[in-house]
């Protein structure tokens, strides 16, 4: 073990065993190229097999290992110990989600929200791939590409103050995903998504704090997506209420 160590203060909660959550401290060897996830793996493998958390790819693309690190939502596979050393590091489950156990949160609600925006290509009439590819220019691709980069890590939900207060708010990632399909030249489902997006649970609930975009590890810019949707929703209201006979 190297001479240098770092203290991890880890949120622990086992339903049925622990009456309430506690923080448990672990002394972990310090390596300047270790990430917080390496430290958790070291704890689990070497000293305490009861610690529970999710992880897989350890390259920032599977979206499993998001946690609060010193109060900030991070992918723990990309949060280096050297960013915090020598100060102790506090590791907690993602905020704004129910905790299942230790660092594992319940994402049922998130998945329902994701599904609610109909995140699939909607076409008028029957779609058949036998007629070959749809053409899509690089420019058309660029319109939605950024919003297709979300890895569902949910850091933006942990950062969003509205998600914490309004449990029905669809939230940043799902709203960005809706825009991703609405902006895709192959999709014709805009009208089907618009009602939800323009509702109180949709874009209008956002108070534009912008934390979602700050914490996003993939530069999706959900805050920008939500603002675009607000404009669309207002246009919708305008057309429906003021010129209901107008052609859409």
């Amino acid at each position: 073990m190297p001479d240098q160590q770092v203290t991890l203060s880890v949120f622990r909660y086992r339903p049925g065993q622990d009456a309430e959550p506690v923080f448990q401290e672990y002394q972990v060897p310090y390596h300047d190229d270790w990430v917080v996830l390496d430290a958790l793996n070291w704890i689990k493998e070497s000293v305490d097999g009861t610690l529970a958390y999710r992880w897989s790819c350890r390259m920032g693309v599977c979206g499993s290992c998001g946690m609060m690190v010193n109060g900030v939502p991070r992918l723990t596979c990309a949060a280096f110990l050297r960013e915090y050393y020598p100060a102790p590091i506090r590791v907690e489950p993602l905020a704004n989600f129910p905790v299942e156990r230790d660092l594992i949160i319940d994402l049922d609600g998130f998945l329902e929200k994701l599904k609610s925006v109909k995140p699939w290509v909607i076409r008028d009439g029957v779609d058949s791939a036998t007629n070959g590819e749809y053409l899509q220019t690089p420019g058309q691709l660029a319109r939605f590409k950024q919003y297709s980069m979300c890895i569902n890590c949910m850091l933006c939900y942990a950062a969003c103050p509205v998600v914490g207060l309004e449990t029905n708010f669809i939230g940043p990632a799902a709203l960005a995903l809706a825009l991703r399909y609405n902006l895709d030249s192959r999709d014709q489902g805009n009208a089907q998504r618009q009602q939800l997006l323009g509702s109180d649970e949709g874009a209008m609930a956002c108070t534009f704090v912008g934390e979602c975009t700050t914490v996003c590890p993939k530069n999706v810019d959900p805050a920008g997506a939500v603002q675009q949707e607000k404009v669309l929703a207002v246009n919708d209201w305008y057309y429906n209420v003021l010129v209901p006979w107008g052609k859409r």
Partner: protein
Amino acid sequence: MTDVIQHDVVVLGGGGAGLRAAIAIAQLDPRLSVGIVSKVYPMRSHTVAAEGGAGAVIKANDSLDAHASDTIRGSDWLADQDAVEVFVREAPGQLIQLEHWGCPWSRDADGHVAVRPFGGMKIERTWFAADKTGFHLLHTLFQTSLKYEQIRRYDEWFATRLLIEDGRCQGLTAIELRTGQLRCIAAKAFILCTGGAGRIFPFTTNGAIKTGDGMALAFRAGVPLKDLEFVQYHPTGLPGTGILITEAARGEGGILVNRHGRRYLQDYNLGTPLDVTDPHHPQKNTMELGPRDRLSQAFIREREKGNTIEGRYGDVVHLDVRHLGEKKIDKKIPFVRELCKNYAGIDPVHELIPVRPVVHYMMGGIHTDVHGATCVPGLFAAGECACVSINGSNRLGSNSLAEILVFGARAGAAAAQLATSGPAPNLSSLLAQLADEQQRIARDFINKQGGTRRIADIRLEMNHTMENGAGIFRDESSLKQTCRTLTDLRDAFRDVRLDDRSLCFNTELTSAIELGCMLDVAQALACSALARTESRGSHQRTDFPNRDDKQFLKHSLAYRTEQGPPRIEYLDVVITRWPPGERVYGK
């Protein structure tokens, strides 16, 4: 009485192959109910980490025969040619289908899908979504699957056993991780889509979940594991983490250099390099665009010559993409830059990337036919966990993403057909097996008395013996040592002890079960490698350096035995139109 959950078809694994199979069933017969059982949420599946692209013929300068020929030559003639013909014929339709489902394929200026060259291709045919192709493919499939109400997901359910009754696969048991309860799921057909087993090796591009579970479950149910000795090392992984630097980096013009700055691949029969400023660089099928097995083997030879560079995590060579310039790097391989910056502290726009070969893909797997069917009625497999075989002894880069779609869909279709006509499961027998499995897990793990060995210690020993004895180059003595060590480790595994005896999300229990699976797969792999006394593709025996078509133009089949190592049998390779020849690159 405990309830048995029932579906018409159950898919085990929610990655690319599993989701594609489920959607195929939902589309073919909307009356069928489909269950997807996965130990992780589908978008966490390892398909997500595939980077460079998916191979399929779409351009006018290409042909199905050219794709088949590159695939077969790459396989060192161990691929079944009837399967390869099916594969190349159906791959374009599958990729177009993904296009219709919204996959953001990169495009040419005229709006058509763009392609790029990969290693071992004479004609470029790799479709790509920048360098996050697997990520986009997986999320497109996952999001598309959400629209089918008849697909029911069991996310974070960990399968522990296939239930065979009357010679048919009729059920499986799985731990619902949230409650810790063992459940029984019955169906008329099951499709295993659990991916590879890279984690049996110490240094791999594979995520933590790639522990060969489906391979082990099938093996224990009596299905042979085919061609398991063929392990693909990707030539360019980041040292330490094993993070993959995609072949697309070389497809776009990146070069490999040794400590003297020499493009050393020219010394290994891979052709003559062109200067990076030459308009014809990179040349297809040549130098850095040679096949993965040859490039990984060249690294070891360079290390023996002292031409590699010492690094913190062992020796490396350098991948140089600087001449591509920032604009092209950001457009074509942005993930490479992101990964290098975030995980290695290197900006490839200005710096050399240290790389070394890293275990990437298992060519072998569950023995299936071209419909994904195994020898156990009601049991199918597709994707990396299966071996049809189209990959033979060395998979052509970018064939795996196309493979999961083609054979995922085919297995789905075959399972759907069986489910409409097959007999109903015998529920009372399944419940008896459920009770038996509950007792086994309690006895061996949760309620176990005694036990001294930590999971991580056994796993590390397994990792090291695999690397030392069954790595890029092997011989009889190294393989025998590995087989002996694995036997010892299987004994040690009986002495494993868990800290965690709780029910909710007991990830130590799942790690232990995964380790048991990995030990089974590792043993079958090492025994198959020991028995194959020739060198072919990724299987290089220093004591038998030549390919031996007379004896070994055959697939290995490893069968589980009650006691002792697996029994190895052989099955002839199917040759249709491409007689075995010499693998020539660089010309």
